[in-house]
Structure formats: structure tokens, C-alpha cells
């Protein structure tokens, strides 16, 4: 059990420094790579280890390591799928980017916001609008949350998804104003139904024309509104600002960030949330620095955090490829991910993906194992350009013991039991099939084990 309320917050958020009795090796670097991104190859881990934790995370947060050419390529690819008119094709494009981008933290955080501001192409249908929103989230992912909230409130995909387009003076639709309070900014219990009704009036007349936000002054309610005790003839932007001023906002966002980046359970105690919420408020809603505090903290590198998250389907499948320098047929991978319960651009509801234990049931567990089996059976799946035999050769892994140790180091946040390791070694050494098959079978088994489900 995690006894998190016993932890001294000053210790928890103070920086983890390598040296002075703190390890800074593959274990810590691999952990950071899984949480700040989707995993790292052996080379990348070495690069990580060569820097201090503070410098490394500072870079991850602040550098845009995608070159302009890469960014352009991703946009071109995305545009090419727009031509198909089918939002489903956006999913595989994003998976492609998640697998290949050097800018992992930005993509990971963009994924966080996609779940936070959950908008489904199922309802929006127009892939252009979905992509536009995705770019909005990417641009603001590590920036100013207030700015992002303003932008998202007039984002056409969101306007459609939460029915703002039907929010008219005479028939206000409260959907968006409810969610901005409940799900986007404040959390349940931190507003009244009257606040929702009054805020909805602020957004009346916010419409879309030709795929862009448009203000329809004839549908806007210019009357006085009273929100959280403040009165005035507020506009929608005033409304967003009033929501942003509420005291519960930073704590709500920090709590969600901790659950996403640090641990699934338990709900973070107020003692841990408060210092970061203060940081978020004091620095004008800048998200990057708060994530930086989290990922450089002593808490982050402790056993309260390591292996305390269940991998999402995307993390589950991309982790394997990223860590083992793998490539595969992205379209098929994307299709298979549906059965695991995560289709990007198609979150299940307004709350996004719940995460944690909600990822797991019989059907999704079998889907996880079967996804890996299929991936390993697929001809296009390559590791460092070849088979697993080639990968082992590349890393000079000969004995089964070396191989299992290496795979454990690359893929797992927790060590395997000794007898499990022995069995895997035996299967690699003298199991059925040729060496490549034996290695693939061992890898399939590792990915089916409970350890690999954790990050």
C-alpha cells in the first residue's frame, strides 16, 4: 500500500540529484523515458544517463526537438489523410508520430490534453476540425493553460462536441459551461448549477462558420450574469477568465497531471497537490514548469511512483517498439488498438479515458497479448531493421541470461521473479522452433506478463 499522506511534500518535490547516494542508471532513465514519453532505445538511454536528471528534463520540457522538417512532414502526412475525409485515418497518423517523434514529452502531454479535453470524431466527424484541435493541444501542451482554455472554448471541434453551436440566447445549451467547470478546470463540487446556467449565457452566440469560430451577435445574451458571486454583462472570454480565477482550478489540474505522469492510485493527497498547485497559480498557469518539477522530483524516482501506473494501450504497444527499435505496419497496429480500448480521436466519452484499472478486463488483456502476437508474426515488424536475432547481435547479447536481463532492463519497471527469468532463458536456449522464433516467443511472453502492463 502507498502511504502517500505520510510523505513530506518538501522532500517529495525536491530535486532528485544523481550522485550523493542516488542511482542514475538504466533503471531511472528507463522510468523517465516511459513516463515522459513512450520508451527509449538502448542508445537513447545512454544519452539520458550522460546528463543530469535536471538538465535532461529541462530539455525535454523546453526544447522542441522535432526539426522543422519533421514537423512539416507530420503535418503533410496529416493533410494527406484529410483528403480521405475520414477521421479514422487521423488515428494511425498520430500513432505514427508518437512512435517516431523525438519530442516525446510534448506528444505525451498532448495525449494527456486529448483525454482531458476529450472530443470524439464520432460526433464531430470532420477530420479537418479534429486535426485543428490536435494542433491546438500540441501547441499549448506545455504552455499556458489559461491560454489553452480560451482557445479550446472557441475550438470548432469542441463547439460541436459539446453543443455550443446550439447555444442560443433563447435556448442556452449548458453542456460546455458544465464541462468547463466539472471536467476541464474545477472539478465536481466546486460550482453550483446556477453558475453553470449563468456561464452558459456568456457563450451564447458562439458558432462556427466555414470551419472557424464566429461570434453571432444576434444570438448572444447581452444581459447581466452572475457567476461565482460576480456580476456583469460578461462575454464568453470573461466567463473563461472567471473560471480560471477560481481557487480549485490549479489543484484540479495538478491532481490530474499527477495521476497521468506519476501514479494511478491512490488519489493524490492534498499535501502533495498543494505545493504544485501553488507553483501553477504563481507562474500564471504555465504547465511546463509543473511537469518539470514532477519529473525531476525525489518522489518521481521513488517506489511510490516507479511501476505504479498501468500502461495505456498506446503506451503498451509503442513501448515495445520504441524500446526495441521496432517498426511495424501502423495501420494494422492502429486497428488492433481498438480492442484494447483506446482509439485516438475517439475517446469513449466526455471524461476521456479513465486510465488505471479501467484499462484492464479479460477482453482487453487477451487483446493485449494477441496484439503483440500479431505484431511479432507480421513480416513488416522489424527490430533495428531486422529480426530479434539481429537486434541481439547488435547489442552483443549471446547467452540467454544476457538476453533476458537486457529485455528486462529495456522493457520493465519491475524485475521478474527469478523462476520466471529461468523459464524464459530455458525457452530461448532450448525451446521449440528456430532461434528467431524462440526469441519472439519469449518476447510475446514477457509482454503478456503482469510486469509489462506496468510503467
Amino acid at each position, binding site marked *: 500500500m502507498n502511504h502517500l499522506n505520510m510523505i513530506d511534500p518538501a522532500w517529495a518535490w525536491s530535486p532528485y540529484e544523481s550522485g550523493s547516494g542516488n542511482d542514475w542508471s538504466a533503471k531511472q532513465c528507463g522510468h523517465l523515458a516511459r513516463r515522459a514519453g513512450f520508451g527509449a532505445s538502448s542508445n537513447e538511454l545512454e544519452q539520458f544517463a550522460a546528463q543530469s536528471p535536471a538538465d535532461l528534463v529541462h530539455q525535454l520540457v523546453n526544447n522542441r526537438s522535432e526539426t522543422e522538417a519533421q514537423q512539416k512532414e507530420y503535418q503533410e502526412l496529416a493533410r494527406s489523410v484529410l483528403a480521405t475525409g475520414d477521421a479514422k485515418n487521423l488515428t494511425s497518423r498520430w500513432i505514427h508520430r508518437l512512435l517516431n517523434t523525438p519530442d516525446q514529452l510534448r506528444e505525451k502531454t498532448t495525449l494527456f490534453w486529448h483525454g482531458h479535453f476529450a472530443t470524439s470524431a464520432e460526433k464531430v466527424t470532420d477530420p479537418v476540425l479534429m486535426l485543428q484541435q490536435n494542433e491546438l493541444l500540441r501547441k499549448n501542451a506545455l504552455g499556458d493553460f489559461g491560454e489553452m482554455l480560451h482557445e479550446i472554448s472557441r475550438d470548432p471541434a469542441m463547439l460541436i462536441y459539446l453543443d455550443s453551436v446550439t447555444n442560443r440566447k433563447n435556448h442556452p445549451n449548458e453542456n460546455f459551461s458544465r464541462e468547463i467547470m466539472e471536467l476541464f478546470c474545477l472539478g465536481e463540487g466546486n460550482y453550483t448549477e446556477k453558475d453553470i446556467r449563468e456561464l452558459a449565457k456568456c457563450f451564447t452566440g458562439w458558432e462556427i462558420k466555414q470551419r472557424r469560430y464566429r461570434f453571432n451577435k444576434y444570438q448572444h445574451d447581452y444581459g447581466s450574469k452572475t457567476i461565482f458571486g460576480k456580476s456583469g454583462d460578461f462575454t464568453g472570454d470573461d466567463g473563461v477568465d472567471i473560471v480560471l480565477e477560481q481557487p480549485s482550478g490549479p489543484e484540479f489540474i495538478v491532481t490530474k497531471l499527477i495521476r497521468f505522469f506519476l501514479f494511478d492510485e491512490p488519489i493524490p493527497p492534498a499535501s502533495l497537490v498543494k505545493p504544485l498547485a501553488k507553483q501553477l497559480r504563481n507562474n500564471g498557469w504555465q504547465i511546463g514548469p509543473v511537469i518539470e518539477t514532477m519529473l525531476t522530483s525525489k518522489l518521481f524516482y521513488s517506489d511510490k511512483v516507479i511501476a505504479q501506473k498501468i500502461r495505456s494501450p498506446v503506451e503498451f504497444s509503442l513501448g515495445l517498439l520504441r524500446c526495441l527499435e521496432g517498426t511495424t505496419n501502423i495501420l494494422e497496429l492502429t486497428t488492433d488498438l481498438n480492442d484494447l480500448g483506446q482509439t485516438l480521436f475517439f475517446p469513449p466519452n466526455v471524461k476521456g479515458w479513465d486510465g488505471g484499472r479501467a484499462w484492464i*478486463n479479460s477482453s482487453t488483456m*487477451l487483446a493485449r497479448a494477441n496484439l503483440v502476437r*500479431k505484431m511479432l508474426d507480421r513480416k513488416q515488424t522489424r527490430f533495428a531493421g531486422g529480426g530479434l536475432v539481429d537486434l541481439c547481435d547488435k547489442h552483443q547479447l549471446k547467452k540467454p541470461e544476457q538476453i533476458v536481463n537486457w529485455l528486462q532492463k529495456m522493457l520493465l519497471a519491475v524485475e521478474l521473479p527469478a523462476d520466471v527469468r529461468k523459464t524464459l532463458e530455458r525457452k530461448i536456449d532450448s525451446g521449440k*522452433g528456430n532461434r528467431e522464433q524462440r526469441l519472439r516467443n519469449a518476447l*510475446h511472453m514477457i509482454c503478456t506478463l503482469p510486469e509489462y502492463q506496468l510503467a
Partner: protein
Amino acid sequence: MSLSRREFINLTASGTAVLGFGGTTPQFLTHAAMKAKSQEKILVVVQLSGGNDGLNTVVPFENDDYKKARPSLAVSKKEALKINDELGFHPVLKGFSNLYNEGQLAIVQGVGYPHPNRSHFESMDFWHTCKRKNEKRDSGWLGRCIDQLQQADPIDIAALHLGKEKQPLSLLSRTHRVPSVRSLEQFRLNVSQQESVKGIRNLIEAKREKANSLLDFVQASTETAIDVSKRFERKGKSYQPKAAYPETALGEKLKTVAQLIESGLQTNIYYVELAGFDTHSQQDGAHVSLLRQLGDAVSAFNTDISKQGHADRVLTVCFSEFGRRVAENASKGTDHGTAAPMFLVGNRVNAGLIGKQPSLKDLDEGDLRFHTDFRQIYAAILENWLGCNSKEILGGAFKPVSVLKT
């Protein structure tokens, strides 16, 4: 499990019990629970998408207004499969007729809701969520039912949607994700020729030294998953349906449901769909074929699960988002309407006709007037079958219709 779900929910005042989370293995994963063949009640929902023509399903063959309104589509007294002197099934609904004669079918007539909406989406959304357009539709009635059930006594998979279609809104929950399954293959662990399921299972169940509640949870879940797979492997090979299913999509889906039930999967709600009921033109061919598929598949399913020994725990419900206009249109079809019959199948239903056939004279803009709100049937299913608090789920108190034997 010493308490039934129902008792549990009643105990914990409107189902708001909060179960301890971290650290404890959920009840559904305990081996005792796995081994015990579940005696929980099962609900199978068959959604007829597009608006089924109720008047040509349960036909008022003696009614002159019906004959007048349907010059080309009316089913004659001679053709209809008699229910009584005034009503009969469409002749292709032999399946329903047999179920009726065996005391396995309840027909609730005139089902609808106030201020009917004739848009497919609006109406279906309302049937799914029980929420009007201006309300927030972020969960469905079955989704909320799952939340209640899972809170009281969590099981592995509370509900399953079978099919390739988009998952119906009725299963949407704010806290639980309902898996959609396209085929039974998804419940099978695929291994290479050199691997064995047993070998993988052995590695999964090996003892873990360090305490990590998430790891324990995932370990137990994976064991459960593999056991489910193994059971399919076994049952799949030996599964012999005890009824002849028609070779149709719906037949296949319901056969899969029967197989899942027989394999001991702990699932309370199964959801399948049959689409194509939007018969605006040349209704006869399409509608006849759909009704035949429906009747044959549902009756085969009911026979099968009864013979497998599950007669008293399976209830099948068929509904559509609306009925159709009384008068046929110029294209020998029918347009969107309102009230229609709803069908409940199983050994525990109050078999027979429930409620009156709506008047064909006193119409509401050319449509039948409902007399039974569909939420009253939901209430009966929730309260008397699944043991839930219906008021919370339906957003109000609806008097249950007595569709089930007490």
C-alpha cells in the same frame, strides 16, 4: 458471494456503496467466484434499428382502419399467425408465434413516450439515455445500470456489445468501458505453434515477491483472462447449440451470446443489433426478411439457452426507436411514426399481450398514441430482473409494468 447484488444494493441505500480500492483483490477475481457458475440474471437486448413497423409485426387484421390505411401492405386475417381474434403476427414471424404459444413471449403494446420525436437519432438517443435533447447525454440507461451493479459487486465484464457497429449510447457509462466484441476469437489467446497457453499461464501465476497492488491486480486479471480463453477453447470445441440457429447475422450473434453464457462468463448484459428497419419504400421485401431473421434467431436462442439450463436466468428484450406511420406512403413504404410493441422473451416473462392495441382512429398527427412509457418497462427490468434502483437510473420514478413473473 453471500449476498446477491440486489440485496447488496438494497443494503447500501440506492447503490452508493463505496468499495475499498487499492490493495484488495476485487471480488470478481477470487477463485471461488470464478469457479462458481454464476446464477446472476442476464439481460439480452436486441435493438431493431431504423424504426420497426409495429402494425405489420403485430397485425390488427380485423381492423378496417388498418386495411384502409395499408392498401398494399396490409396483412390479411388469413395470412396472420393468430394471437387472438383481432391480432396476429406477420406470417414470417413463426419464431415469435411459437414463443407465444410456448408461453415464452410477452408483447407490450403501444409503447412510446410523451412528445415523440420522429428523428432516428433523437428518438434512439432518448431510448438509450432516457434524457431529452436539452439534457446532458453522457451516459445510457444500461451504462448507469452497470455503474450501480459494479459498485455493489464488481465482476470481470458487466456488459458486452456484440457487433461491428458503433457501440450504442445506452451502454455508455462515465466510469466503465463496455467491450465491443466482433467475434469469439477475441476471447481466445493466440499462441504460436511453439508456445502453449499453459506455459504462459504458468509464468503469469508464478509468485511475485514484492507487494504491489497494481501488479497483483493485473496478475489476477490476466489469470482470469486466460481462464476465460481456456474455457472457450474447451467449450468452443464441445459447444453444441441445442437449437438450429438461422444462418443470419443476428443468428450468429445470438449463438455467440448463448456460447458466452454457457461458458460461464460472468456478464449481466449482452447487446446486439439488427438494422435496416427504416422501410420508407417497397417495405414488403425488406421488412419481411428482417422479421423472419428476428423471429427465427430469437426463438432459436431461447430454445438453446433453455435446453442448456439457463431458462430462468435469461431475459431477451427487443425494441425499436419508434414505430411507423399508420398510413402507408406512395412508395409502398411507411414513414417514421411513434408507438409500437415491445417484446420480452424468456421463461420468466408474463407471457401474452400486455396493454391495449392503440386506437387507429384517435391518432396524433397520423400516428398511434402510446399508452405505456418505455421507461416503465426499463423500470421493471431494472428493479425486478437486474435488482437495481431504477429511479436513479431513469432519472425519475416510473411504475414498472408487470412484464415479469413474480
